[in-house]
């Protein structure tokens, strides 16, 4: 593959646009969550800043930036400063492999609607989600606070157990698409989305990404009622903001991946691909918010129990059955 100025320029432009899109989406997902939860809970939610509270994310950002940045006296200053970035950067990097729409031909150039179409796309995603654990673990450790430490221990064990079932639930998708490349996976669903062949894998993936995002019912690392705020108890200002935004970017990213793996990504009738993709991702985000409005929190050992003794074996069986089925075809 030869690189010329246009390719490089295009890549940079795509990165810039994507950055803008995901940060905006994450900010408005926060607002959407607050408004939708409020609606479910029979209250108003933030509706004062701008029309219907539409400028609330901006106000939140200003607040975060102008808050005092407290670092506990006994904290490990370097790790404490680096951890929020380690939590949010992998979440943002995941978007590099996500195709937002079908490739378009502009001025004779074939432009794919993703930053890079890696041939090991899924591995890249799994690697990033493994790295994201460090943000949680180091953040809690570096704070030198007992609540934060407990939170990060929970975070570590939770993410390790759910990484496994999440990874295993994608294997059948790879088996069906015969590729780890995102564009191939989407193209393999041209006739039928994989959710039809793999409903079980879809459910396992969905539960696992709930845990991966540290959302209720799996929000143990930051369980408010128990650990105050878990691993980010000691964080304030924009450092806390980074953890927070990282979490919401993660929700969007994992929602996007779920729609790519199981719902055919940007494919869909009538509407333009980008709209279809947006609708699917929004549906996942709504589902996440809905779950938060409905379910209580699991206990630490019950969560491990669910992950190791239930989801992982189920995913393994699912892989075997898929292999058997593929060998028959």
């Amino acid at each position, binding site marked *: 593959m030869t690189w010329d100025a246009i390719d490089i320029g295009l890549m940079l432009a795509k990165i810039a646009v994507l950055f803008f899109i995901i940060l905006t989406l994450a900010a408005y997902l926060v607002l959407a969550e607050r408004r939708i939860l409020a609606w479910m809970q*029979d209250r108003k939610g933030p509706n004062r800043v701008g029309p219907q509270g539409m400028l609330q994310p901006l106000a939140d950002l200003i607040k975060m930036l102008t808050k005092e940045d407290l670092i506990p006296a006994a904290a490990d200053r370097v790790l404490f400063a680096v951890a929020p970035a380690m939590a949010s950067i992998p979440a943002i990097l995941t978007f590099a492999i996500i195709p937002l729409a079908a490739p378009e031909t502009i001025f004779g150039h074939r432009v794919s609607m993703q930053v890079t179409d890696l041939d090991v796309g899924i591995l890249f995603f799994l690697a990033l989600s493994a790295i994201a654990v460090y943000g949680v673990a180091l953040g809690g450790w570096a704070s030198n606070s007992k609540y934060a430490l*407990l939170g990060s221990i929970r975070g570590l064990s939770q993410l390790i157990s759910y990484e496994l079932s999440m990874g295993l639930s994608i294997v059948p998708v790879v088996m069906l698409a015969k590729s780890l490349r995102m564009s191939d996976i989407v193209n393999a669903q041209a006739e039928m989305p994989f959710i039809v062949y793999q409903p079980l894998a879809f459910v396992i993936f969905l539960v696992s990404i709930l845990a991966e995002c540290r959302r209720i019912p799996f929000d143990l690392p930051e369980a408010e009622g*128990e*650990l105050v705020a878990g691993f980010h108890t000691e964080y304030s200002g924009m450092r806390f903001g980074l953890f927070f935004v990282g979490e919401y970017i993660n929700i969007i990213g994992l929602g996007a991946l779920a729609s790519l793996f199981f719902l055919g990504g940007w494919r869909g009738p009538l509407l333009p691909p980008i709209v279809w993709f947006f609708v699917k991702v929004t549906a996942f985000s709504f589902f996440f918010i809905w779950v938060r409005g409905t*379910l209580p*929190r699991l*206990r*630490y*050992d*019950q969560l491990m129990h669910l992950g190791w003794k239930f989801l992982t074996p189920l995913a393994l069986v699912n892989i075997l059955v898929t292999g058997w089925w593929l060998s028959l075809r």
Partner: protein
Amino acid sequence: MSTEIMTLNMGPQHPSTHGVLRLVVELDGEIVEKITPHIGYLHRGIEKLSEHRTYHQTIPLTDRMDYLAPMHNNLGYVLAVEKLLGIEVPERAQTVRVIMAELTRLKSHLVWIACHALDIGAMTVFLYAFRERELVMDIYEMVSGARMTSNFFRVGGLSKDVPEGFVPAVQNIVDTFIGHFDTYEGLLTKNTIWLQRTVGNGVISAEDAINYGLSGPPLRGSGVDFDLRRDEPYSGYEGYDFQVAVGEKGDTFDRYKCRLVEMRQSISILKQALGKLKPGPVLADEPQVCYPPKEDVYNSIEGLIHHFKIASEGFPAPEGEVYVGVENPKGELGYYLVSDGSAKPYRMRVRPPSFVNLSAIEKMAKGSMMADLVAVIGTLDIVLGEIDR
């Protein structure tokens, strides 16, 4: 690998220690090894203060003990003083007291289910329960002018009759609340995660519950059928038909079910009480003890002097001692009054249900996980204002 016990200071600032409870918890990983409650952060010396006040002046202090069930605290206190004086309370006052007491039970239990659910992560129930509690608050405001510190009952009856609109407001609660309880049960009782978190959590046997002196739902949840409203009726409770909720296993789920049944029974009592509410006086005819009607105070010199005399001097109570226990939403709230014949109590001792129930926390949560400890705090339904007084 060598491990260490970690000592974790939980509270007094912590989202789920319900006020200013401080627990020093010794943790082995996440397993709770030892719990030492530290109390006293909300101590205001209410018992001591009452020794320097006339009997009437202590009523507002009792509001501030269990601030989630203020009228019940008033009730226990005025019943104790009435028993000391041997005063009979008019029929209407008794019925209004029962109505307010049961509304208070609803109000207190709604806060309990809200906080308990929030501690376990079910956020929506919290807001639903507080929405309903607001209706009870409105009635509080209607009768007493205050939403929390009600100061509504008086020795001998009520401070004033209930206003117009009281009966429809209570009727509205009777009509709508059962549906709301069904909503909570839909969100919790039928939820697998909720069951996993509460069934088998914080178990205490009936024998232990009695030995620790537990009362209220923590006692009944363990299968001990004891309710002061039925066993030592006061304020006319013997005339109401209600069922006492009793659990079996003594776990958090049984206590949860007990309280929900109690809330439904409260609605039934309210319904009966509304039927019994007949016009009549709301203050006993005891000029030595009771304040004169406000019209007399404003319009006649005798009334004014009468009011002034009771307000400034109070009334002397016969020498002696009494104990009255009432079935507070949290358990048995007891008032022990010693009188030396003067206008002020020689000693007032309060038996706070939360304080006694809290003592069982180590028994219930030892060996379980940190998350279970939070559930146990929630299920005990403690109020620190009452523990510290």
